[in-house]
Structure formats: C-alpha cells, structure tokens
C-alpha cells in the first residue's frame, strides 16, 4: 500500500492504494468518485473516460500512480459551480442520456473535444466519440447535444 496523490477536479486528494490499482479503481474505491464507470474494464467501451492534462484517456487502463502530478478531471468536476456544464445541460435538453451508463465517459470525451475544437463538424464529433459505446444506441441525440453545446458556448 502506498499513498497516491492526485489532483482531481482542482482538489489535492490522497489515498492509500496498492501499486497495481488502476486510476479507475482508485477514483471509485479510494476516493468515492463513482461517476466514472467500470464497463468492459479493457479499453473497449469508454465508460471510464476521464480528462488527463486536457486529453480524454481510459482510467481503466491507466495506473493511479501514472496520474500523479497531472491535472485530472472526472465527470464530477465538469459542472461550473452549481451550474451544469453546457454539454451536460444540452444532454438534458436533447434527451441524450437513456440508461446513462455511458454518459459520464461521453461527457468527458465531449468536453475534451470542445476545449480543443470549439466548433466541430458532425464528422469531428462522431470521430471524437468513436471510443465511447452507447448500448442504448442513442448516438444521434448525443451528437445533437454536443453540437448544441458548441453553439451555446460560442455565443
């Protein structure tokens, strides 16, 4: 057991986990941040996607110790104060979440996209979300929501 120090959603957090714990296991079981989901746990589904140094990565295939000293954001940290992030707001308005299991990962991939590319084309949205599976298959409304959020953020 070793102490892992993570900078999560702007907070310095520390917890004791074994060296072989993944970032996802550490977030969920060590820090109680259960927003990031454990789906396939093998890098296929994207439900565990978090934003590390501004890039969407898979927390199930990252060791917690690899994230030390880096800027980490999870779905819990996307809201701005008490206001939902524009992407979260548009997911709500567009009905882009069905069962909701894939939603935290898709929100993280979407936010990482919009921070680099504030007005993506439909094709760029689809490409950015290629690594996030929605088994309810509600992709069109998800793309609509990301596009609507881009328009809102550009206003």
């Amino acid at each position, binding site marked *: 057991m070793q102490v892992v120090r993570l900078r999560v959603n702007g907070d310095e957090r520390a917890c004791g986990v*074994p*060296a*072989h714990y993944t970032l996802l296991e550490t977030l969920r079981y060590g820090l109680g941040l259960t927003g990031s989901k454990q789906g396939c*746990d*093998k890098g296929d589904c994207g439900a565990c*996607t978090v934003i590390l140094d501004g890039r*969407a990565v898979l927390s199930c295939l*990252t060791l917690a*110790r690899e994230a030390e000293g880096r800027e980490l954001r999870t779905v819990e940290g996307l809201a701005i104060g008490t206001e939902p992030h524009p992407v979260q707001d548009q997911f709500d308005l567009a009905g882009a979440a069905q069962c909701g299991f894939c939603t935290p990962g898709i929100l993280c991939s979407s936010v990482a996209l919009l921070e680099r590319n504030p007005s993506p084309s439909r094709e760029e949205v*689809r490409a950015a979300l290629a690594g996030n599976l929605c088994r309810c298959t509600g992709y069109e409304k998800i793309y609509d929501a990301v596009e609507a959020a881009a328009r809102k953020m550009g206003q």
Partner: protein
Amino acid sequence: MAVIRDMIPPFELYQPSGVEDAVRLVGEHGDQGWVLAGGLDTFDWLKDRIKRPAAVIDLGGVAELGGISETDDGGLEIGAMARLTAVAESGDVRSRFPLLAEAAGLVATPQIRNQGTLGGNIVQDTRCWYYRSGWPCYRAGGNVCYAGTSRSMNREHCILGASRCVAVNPSDTAPALVALDAEMTVANASGERTYAARDFFIGPEIDITRMTVLEPGDLLTRVRLPAPQPGARWYFEKIRDRKSWDFSLASVASVLHVDGDVVRDARIVVNGVAPYPVRSDAAEAVARGRAPDDETGQMAGEAAVQDARALRHNDYKIALMRNLVKRSVRDAA
C-alpha cells in the same frame, strides 16, 4: 482458459525518470519484468492473468523518450513513448511523413491514441484470439497451434509467413515505418544497436514466441526516419470490420518514387497478412520501370499474392491483399 477478472494481481511497480535507469531496470528484471508504455496491450494481458510479471517498469515518467525532433540529416527522430495523438498531429510528421501521420491517426480510438505510444503500437503482441485467451499454443510455449486446423476459427489469421504459428502482426504504424525505411534503436545493458524496420519484425521461423527482435532486457527507445525524398508518392489504407474503430484485417503502406511517368523505386508493405509486416519484393519488382497505373497495380497485386495460402476462413484476405497492393501503386499521391 481465460477467466476475465476485474483486478490485476499485484506486482512491483518501478517508475524510472531517465532512460539509463529504465534500461537498467529492464535488464535487472529480465523475463520477470514487463515494460509498460501506454498500457493498452499490457493491461489486456494482466487483467486476464495470462501474463503475470513480477515487476512492471512504467516508462511514463521518462520524458526524453516522448519527444519528436529533427535529425542532422533532415529526418525525424521519434521517441518510443511519443503518444500516437502527438505523432498523428505533429506538424513535422504531417508535413514530411504524412504516411505515418495517417497510419497513427487510424489506430483505435481517440482515448487509445491519447495514451497509446508509437513504441507500444510497434511492439504490441498479436491478437490471435486462441493465444490471447491463454491457450497453450506454440507462441505461448506449448506444442500445438489451435488456429491453423481445419476446424479453427481463423478469419483474422495469416495467408503468408506461417510457420507452425498463423498469427498476424496487428500494428497500423509498423507497415508505415517499414515503407518509410525507418530505423529502430534498441538499448540494453551492453549498449545500443539499431535495426532497419524491415528486420525489426520477425516471423515464427526465427522465434515463435516473439513478434520483434526484442528479447528480455531489451528496450526500444527511438525510431529514426530518414529524410523524405522530394516528390515521393505515398499511400496508406486500413481495412477493418467496423469503420468507427477496430484492428485492421489488412493494411497497406507504400512509398513510390516516380520520375516522369515511370516508377523508379517502390516500397510496398502489407500488414495483417503475416506474422510480420510483409515487404513485397515481387510487387516492387513488377512496379519498377512501369507507369503507376491500373495495369501495373493489377500486376503488382498478382505478384504480391503469388505465394499466399488461405486457411479455412480467410481466403478473402488474398483478394484483399491483391486489391490493396493494386490501389497502393495506382493511387499513390
């Protein structure tokens, strides 16, 4: 056989911050050690508990392996830990080696490219699903191939280069690097040595348990690309079951030097058809001295598959390879 569990068994984790330390650790731990780069191939093996290393050496903190820099001769040197996104988006790579940028950009998903590395993509293990499921095949040190029998499910397996094992190399960037005549630098306790990309990948007739020249104690540190020749044409195409993302069924990478309307030199490399990226000397010989048109492409494609032999479920790969080679000659730009 494989039982997927949700946690990785414990290991000792080492996180060196310099190349020297990394090489020393990799040497000390030998075949009990495991090199961790982006983690995509690694954690698949470790979570299935099929590979159980005692020590994991994480290269994530070795900053000097992550760079992309110009070389004295006008080429580029890319560290083994350069992320695939960085390779695909690098201005230097895009302007001088668009073939590699294209190949790196077609690997898997955005998340996987953000964490996956060029070195990891090159040295990743085969996807043969019998082997990955933990069956005790030749490649796993056993004495049988489960994929090559008349009753095997072998749609993804090889049509060339079989030698007891019929697995294929799954990398998208490997054929691009062979076509670009790249050079790999390998370090170990006794120093550094370099390999032409073509020789870096090995078949089962050389060692059935490895996909590359790397042995326990070795570390791939850098990839060097020689200066591009002005006017060279290139082509890359990856065929996969799903357009959104997948491993390739087959891919082709070619570099053509065309003078007037005649191919002076060509490097044509196909992956996903053999245990290593196949540079087709036969197709290149056909293309040389002829116009890079449909007819030459057709002839080159036929030449490329002359020795191909299908397994029960993969004869489509012969037609696929023939057509990929044809297009790589005809449509290189």
